């Protein structure tokens, strides 16, 4: 099944980053954001699994280990749909630059490793828009594991795929699980025309490449003038009923 085969025709631009945990993608997108803002661009930023609608539900269910591969996948798709319609499409329509830390490809990699069908999960996300650039930070599994282990005291249960019964040891399980995710990402490079960045290079060198690609994609894009480029932007003010 082909998804994302159509370019969006909104005046804004969408740039996203993908990669396994420890690939350094979040660092790179933060640096990209800093640069764009300093250049006077109006930037909107959205992160995987952060919608208020399902955040509590997901957190709670993960803690109690209540999720099956299918409900895990559907919950994340719900989060994505909510963010797409509140945080991605409206700013794109308003002509802004949207940066997303993880996109549907994360689901295509993780959920398939967890056991859902690749066609099914691709259909699930078929309503998403194709990003202008999808950066994929490619890193050997050992490097990713070393980075995570040196930066964190503990690996989270689901991050390590402990729910899948791959290995009794968290570190070993993490390595197997993330390795399989990495394989899925590699398959997607051609399928979705991902822009591969060698994430073993120095942070600064990687950022240079990212900025060059983004600059090229911004050719002909007209900057939206806002008064405060660096101020956090809210598109939709939710009302609360007490």
């Amino acid at each position, binding site marked *: 099944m082909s998804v994302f085969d159509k370019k969006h025709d909104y005046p804004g631009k969408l740039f996203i980053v993908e990669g396994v945990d420890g690939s350094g993608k979040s660092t790179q997108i933060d640096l990209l954001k800093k640069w764009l803002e300093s250049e006077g661009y109006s930037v909107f930023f959205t992160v995987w699994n952060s919608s*208020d*609608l*399902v955040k*509590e*539900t997901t957190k709670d*269910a993960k803690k109690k280990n*209540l999720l*099956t*591969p*299918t*409900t895990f996948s*559907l*919950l994340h*798709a*719900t989060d994505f*749909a*909510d963010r797409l*319609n*509140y945080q991605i499409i409206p700013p794109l329509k308003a002509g802004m630059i949207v940066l997303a830390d993880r996109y549907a490809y994360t689901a295509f990699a993780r959920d398939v490793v967890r*056991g*859902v*069908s690749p*066609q*099914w999960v691709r*259909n*699930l996300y*078929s*309503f998403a828009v194709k990003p202008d650039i999808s950066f994929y930070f490619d890193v050997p599994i050992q490097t990713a594991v070393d980075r995570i282990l040196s930066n964190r005291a503990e690996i989270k249960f689901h991050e390590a795929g402990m729910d899948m019964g791959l290995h009794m040891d968290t570190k070993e399980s993490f390595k197997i699980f993330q390795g399989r995710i990495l394989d899925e990402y590699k398959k997607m490079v051609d399928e979705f025309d991902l822009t591969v960045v060698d994430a073993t290079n120095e942070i600064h060198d990687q950022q240079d490449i990212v900025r060059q690609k983004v600059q090229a994609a911004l050719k002909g894009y007209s900057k939206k003038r806002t008064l405060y480029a660096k101020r956090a932007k809210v598109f939709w003010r*939710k*009302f609360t*009923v007490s």
Partner: protein
Amino acid sequence: MPNEPKYFGESLPYLKPFQKKGLLIAIEGTDGCGRSTQLALLKNWLEVKGYAVVETGWARSNLMHKSLEMAKSGNMMDRMTFTLLYATDFADRFENLIIPALRSGHIVLIDRYIWTAMVRDVVRQSDPKWIRNMFSFALVPDLSLYMKIDIETLVPRVIEGGGMNYWEAGMDLHMGQDLFDSFVNYQVALISEYDKLAKEFDFETIDARKTVEEIRGDIREKVKALLDKAKPKK
């Protein structure tokens, strides 16, 4: 009686193959057509006959309760998100309740099935292929009862039975100037979609305009036929 389960599309890849010892009976129909009354009567009747019954219904999973309440209270307007929330709710009940109950030989009565999501979505002009693929892992029920009603009968029933609400009136679609017009137009659209699905998916249609007792009798007839058919041959 054990038989091979039948799915609308592919079964979940990680689901271990199983023999279906129980029966799945779904009951569909628009808001206020009398589904829950009839389901309660049916459950009681089956239990008196000695069948173990498990009952479940739309939006009843513990997992999604909080998110669905949040969505319904008005902080969300997007159709796809709604559909995904309901699909998650369905999948949770499907894997954790319906499948285990069928494995162990229960009769599962389910108030609203995947068609509820389909009719609501189609009325809102979304891509029918998307939602059908999403629910392709669901089991085809052994019996799908469709309580068909008309708008003339429905309106007084709803007014007697607690009134119309925002979602039952499809207010997000702005199909009328006021609650009443919107309710009528929305429900007529839903009923017409149900009628289309009835042909495609072999629903057993029950005339829901009749009295509670008459409907109860009609449903028992259909269920009895299913039970007779499912009995092991001697």
